[in-house]
């Protein structure tokens, strides 16, 4: 791939927000460098099953945008790469160092045929399936990856050479070294998204302690078309769960774990999953333990009402503790707020924790001579929310999507376009001075 060393805009993070901003800027004629630390673009959205409230499949929305970003003449894509250093030299003038991690696969040669994956003898846990399945040390990140190219995970590789021997395109190259690129850019969009709350920080909900307690992200994978198994199965014994409980607000609205914010998406994704479960396991019962149901967006309330009408149980109550019984079922002890706060317990085959969204702002450390402010929880701070929400504390650096706080896909996409607008305006004021 031929690489220029100057771009109009650097976008850090190629989840749906980063991709959207790149496409909008690219369409308007700006040259964009889109950097993603994983082996594929698409972020969390590409791993989801379907999306609320329209129930269109996440891949169907994400994949065309992913493909369009990959093919756009004004967008240069760098996957498996990390921004290491940013220096602001002046307005519309940033120097950026980017580390291209070795894939040990020649991107141009690899056809994504997957033969290396088949022949690789090493099996490790698959992070893109949230550890519910194995992957090989030679692997393609996930089914709808863009680029759909292999990576050799050298940390786990035993250097047996099978992939190198079998690759029909001779794409395996163990001699690759980390490479540092130096580029100049005029503006930057931070679109690094969010991290999922680690449920082991709330041990009373049983994650890790009870086998049949999983996270909602794992459930989304179980329901996705590119799912690890062909059905919704519980981890302990591979049984199809007939009684499923959701615990909302795990790691959200919770100062004990340092996160007073509501995560904004958990109510709706849980409701969505409840609908999908009714499709996948028609006989299963779903109960959702909630504090407040936050169905606030366009079409959300109607979707919530529809899910209630379809038979999902909504129980207003705080879950105190969950325990595993002899059969591996999960006993949930909770306060039933609709019954005067009385303590009750119920047993489920599977418990899903609606884990919240946490900041993913480590990227701010690479900015050398400017300081990107964070808010009290650690999200990128929107310094002028009631005037220009895309701006950060540094002129020329903008924020889009969940990097600035938890939000759903439509809001992320709108914010990404807003950040794109601010880049165009900023570049025009400080670089191009154009008038059409």
């Amino acid at each position, binding site marked *: 791939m031929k690489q220029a060393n100057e771009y109009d805009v650097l976008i850090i993070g190629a989840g749906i927000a980063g991709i959207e901003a790149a496409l909008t800027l690219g369409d308007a004629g700006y040259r964009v460098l889109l950097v993603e630390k994983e082996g594929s673009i698409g972020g969390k959205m590409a791993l989801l099953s379907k999306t609320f409230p*329209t*129930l269109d499949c996440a891949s169907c929305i994400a994949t065309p945008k992913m493909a369009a970003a990959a093919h756009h003449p004004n967008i240069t894509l760098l996957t498996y790469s990390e921004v290491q250093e940013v220096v602001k030299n002046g307005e519309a003038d940033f120097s950026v160092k980017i580390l291209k991690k070795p894939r040990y696969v020649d991107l141009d040669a690899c056809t994504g045929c997957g033969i290396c994956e088949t022949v690789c003898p090493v099996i490790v846990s698959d992070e893109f399936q949230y550890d519910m399945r194995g992957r090989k040390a030679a692997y393609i990140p996930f089914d709808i990856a863009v680029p759909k190219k292999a990576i050799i995970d050298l940390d786990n590789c035993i250097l047996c050479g099978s992939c190198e021997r079998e690759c029909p395109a001779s794409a395996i190259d163990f001699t690759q070294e980390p490479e540092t690129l130096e580029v100049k850019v005029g503006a930057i969009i931070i679109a690094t998204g969010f991290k999922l709350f680690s449920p082991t920080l709330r041990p009373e909900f049983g994650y890790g302690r009870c086998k049949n307690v999983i996270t909602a992200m794992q459930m989304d994978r179980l329901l996705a078309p590119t799912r690890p198994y062909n059905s919704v199965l519980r981890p302990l014994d591979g049984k199809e769960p007939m009684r499923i409980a959701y615990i909302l607000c795990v790691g959200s609205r919770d100062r004990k774990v340092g996160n007073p914010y509501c995560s904004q998406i958990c109510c709706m994704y849980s409701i969505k999953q409840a609908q999908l479960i009714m*499709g996948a396991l028609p006989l299963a019962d779903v109960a959702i333990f909630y504090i407040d149901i936050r169905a606030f967006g366009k079409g959300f309330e109607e979707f919530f009402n529809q899910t209630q009408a379809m038979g999902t149980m909504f129980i207003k109550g705080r879950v105190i503790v969950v325990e595993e019984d002899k059969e591996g079922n999960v006993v949930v002890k909770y306060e039933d707020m609709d019954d005067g706060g009385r303590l009750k317990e119920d047993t489920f085959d599977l418990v899903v924790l609606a884990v919240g969204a946490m900041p993913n702002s480590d990227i701010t450390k690479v900015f050398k001579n400017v300081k990107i402010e964070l808010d009290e929880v650690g999200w990128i701070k929107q310094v002028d929310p009631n005037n220009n929400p895309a701006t950060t504390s540094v002129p020329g650096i903008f924020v889009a999507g969940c990097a600035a706080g938890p939000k759903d896909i439509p809001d992320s996409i709108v914010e990404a376009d807003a950040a794109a607008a601010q880049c165009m305006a900023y570049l025009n004021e400080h670089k191009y001075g154009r008038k059409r």
Partner: protein
Amino acid sequence: MPEEFKPKILIFSTNFISDLAIDLTGLLHRHYPVTTSIIRIPCSSMIRPDIILYAFQCGFDGVFVAADGTDCPFLKDCSDRTAKRIAEAMELLKKHGIEPERLKMSAICSVCVEPFLKHIHDLYEKVKKLGPIKRKPE
């Protein structure tokens, strides 16, 4: 036992309005007769009466025109225009010995799932009662 008559219905849907409702019907997994076939057109006002006759001559037992109604992005009066074409088509059908009740037009807005289901079921049942077309030789 003779096989049950399952009428074949041709549906004309419009790209920007009624096809969205039909999409939505599918999205909600709502069922309607499977012996339907759908052709997307830009606006229902483009349907030629002779095309409707042609559909019957080819073997369809019913035709449903999911018109745009007032939502049409092209024409405010598209329903009126389409209605004229449909009236002409009905005359044409009569001339060829085909019951005009086999043709139905209704405005289906982009979220009109229930009306779509109702109209398509109604037409299906009606045509079923009428039975196969006693075709006149051409």
